[in-house]
């Protein structure tokens, strides 16, 4: 599918065996006993989990495994019943979501949240941190923020070019297609200069060609020194770009490890991948005759 050279994987991230909850050499996020229940349903119950810094970690698992809930908990969009977690050594328990984002841990959403009636460039500029014109008193006098705003615009345009949205800059975000909104949301998140980027299904609903360029963007984030944690169902993508994979099922971490090994674990196949992972769907359903052994 890709004729790019294979991205350099980072290996040797963990200490000891790659078992659920294993220690990492350089953890960025450390999660302890985080539990969240909705009525009788335990959505998330993570004993211990460490997310390594400077690499791309994929969070996979069946629908309802608690991946998005864990995202919400880690970013302060939801509060757990019990538990503690820290980001680069700072405890994040009880820290409101906007402060989490200010600390450099930024997220995107599964259901894309483009700000529809703002233009693409306004969406982007909103992402920049530490804007003096966002304080109400300085906002009244452009002298305080004009220069900074121009610098932000330059930076926003560079990012938009990278994401091929620069021609859309003055259009309302509402006029973008679903895939373009995904791109815009990711680009906007990057405007905050994050340390940790958390992407919730960045490839869902994006066409194959665009997936390719999104993949390159995600890999380039790692190249720029950012840590990436993402939720994804596309196993090709996970295998292609993830350095580390965490598998969740029924709220618990059931396996973790480098993608090559973790996807062969029986627990992962049972809980998530299914026995027919490598088989063509036509063969599974028996509706199409598959000619085997040719140009695969």
């Amino acid at each position, binding site marked *: 599918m890709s004729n790019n050279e294979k991205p350099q994987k980072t290996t040797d991230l963990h200490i000891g065996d790659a078992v659920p909850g294993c220690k990492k050499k350089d953890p960025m996020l450390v999660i302890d006993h985080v539990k969240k229940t909705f009525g009788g349903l335990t959505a998330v119950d993570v004993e211990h989990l460490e997310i390594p810094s400077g690499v791309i970690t994929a969070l996979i698992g069946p629908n309802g495994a608690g991946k998005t809930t864990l995202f919400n908990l880690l970013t302060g*969009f939801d509060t757990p019943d019990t538990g503690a977690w820290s980001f680069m050594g700072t405890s994040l328990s009880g820290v409101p979501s*906007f402060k989490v984002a*200010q600390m450099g841990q930024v997220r995107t959403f599964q259901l894309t*949240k483009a*700000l529809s*009636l703002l233009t693409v460039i*306004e969406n982007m500029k909103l992402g920049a941190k530490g804007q003096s014109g966002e304080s109400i008193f300085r*906002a009244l006098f452009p002298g305080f923020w004009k220069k900074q705003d121009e610098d932000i615009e330059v930076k926003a345009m560079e990012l938009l070019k990278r994401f091929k949205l620069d021609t859309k800059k003055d259009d309302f975000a509402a006029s973008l297609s679903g895939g373009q909104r995904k791109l815009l949301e990711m680009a906007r998140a990057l405007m*905050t200069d994050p340390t940790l980027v958390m992407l919730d299904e960045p490839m869902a609903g994006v066409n194959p060609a665009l997936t390719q360029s999104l993949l390159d963007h995600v890999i380039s984030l790692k190249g720029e020194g950012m840590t990436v944690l993402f939720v994804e169902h596309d196993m090709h993508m996970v295998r292609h770009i993830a350095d580390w994979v965490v598998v969740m099922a029924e709220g618990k971490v059931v396996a973790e490890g480098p993608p090559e090994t973790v996807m062969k674990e029986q627990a992962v196949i049972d809980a998530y991948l299914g026995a027919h992972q490598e088989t063509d769907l036509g063969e599974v359903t028996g509706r199409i005759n598959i000619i085997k052994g040719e140009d695969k």
Partner: protein
Amino acid sequence: MDWGSILNNTLAGFLTPTTIAFALAALGLAMHFGFAGLLNFGIAGFMAIGGYGYAISVLTFGLPWWAGMLVGVLGSVVFALILGIPTLRLRGDYLAIATIAAAEIARLLFLTTAFTDVTGSADGLFGFNSRPDGSGFQNSNPIPQGTYGFGPFTYNEQTLWVLVFGLIVLTVAVWFLWALMRSPWGRVIKGIREDEEAVRSLGKNVFAYKLQALVIGGVFGALGGIIYTAAQNISPGVYVTSLTFFIWTSLLLGGAATIFGPVIGAVIFWVIQAFLSNLLPALSTSGILPVSTTQASTLRFVLVGIGLMLLVIYRPQGIFGDKRELTFVK
């Protein structure tokens, strides 16, 4: 029918203290709803607090007029904080319910006989614009006694003073809103209107921004109430829920997410009101409308309701709204 007098009275609706008061209050709603997406159905409450804050400070506490007006503004700030702190964390619809209830509570507090000494109860308050000790608003009137203007725009020195003062306040308010909305602050506010979770995920303190927007819009509402009160006596019967909806009509006429829309909307609203309140009774007296004169003048409110419905269905972005917005209305 006397078309001359109907036309004259209609034109007079262009510039009255009431028109200016409506424009200010609609500007407050533009801040709340048009830009920040806060559903405030209690703008009449903010106006009442502005007006009563001014009148009570002058009559009961003997403050000079400008200090009284400042008290009215501060009162609306406190009202916005009381309203906003518990409700702004909730979804938008809850704010709508809380504001409509809070505005009614404010009105009933001014109406109840328990505080007649201070509020004048159902009779309201009067005599605060001109004070025997010379500290009243009209005592500071720099305009010499006389009649000014021409045709439908003829005013005595008292009305003219309210108009001049009101226009200055309105100009400052328009500038303030314009300056805010072109700034990065305005960008955050508009972002919150679209999706507050997204804005929160970018590290903005959404609650603080919403509270600021609520306070600013509330102050505009209070200023509207103050200008209204500076031109006449104050009575609780004015600040009923229908006042809120008239101001909503003005806002939606002009365009909710615009700066000049609310001002022009208020003018159009009052010109139409003046036109209908003169035309309909005249039609009834000349036998064209088969209703009594009283019924005819109430009919205009029915027409306002129909107009409001047609407006939100066919032109939700208002007269001055961006046409592109309509394409993407959710």
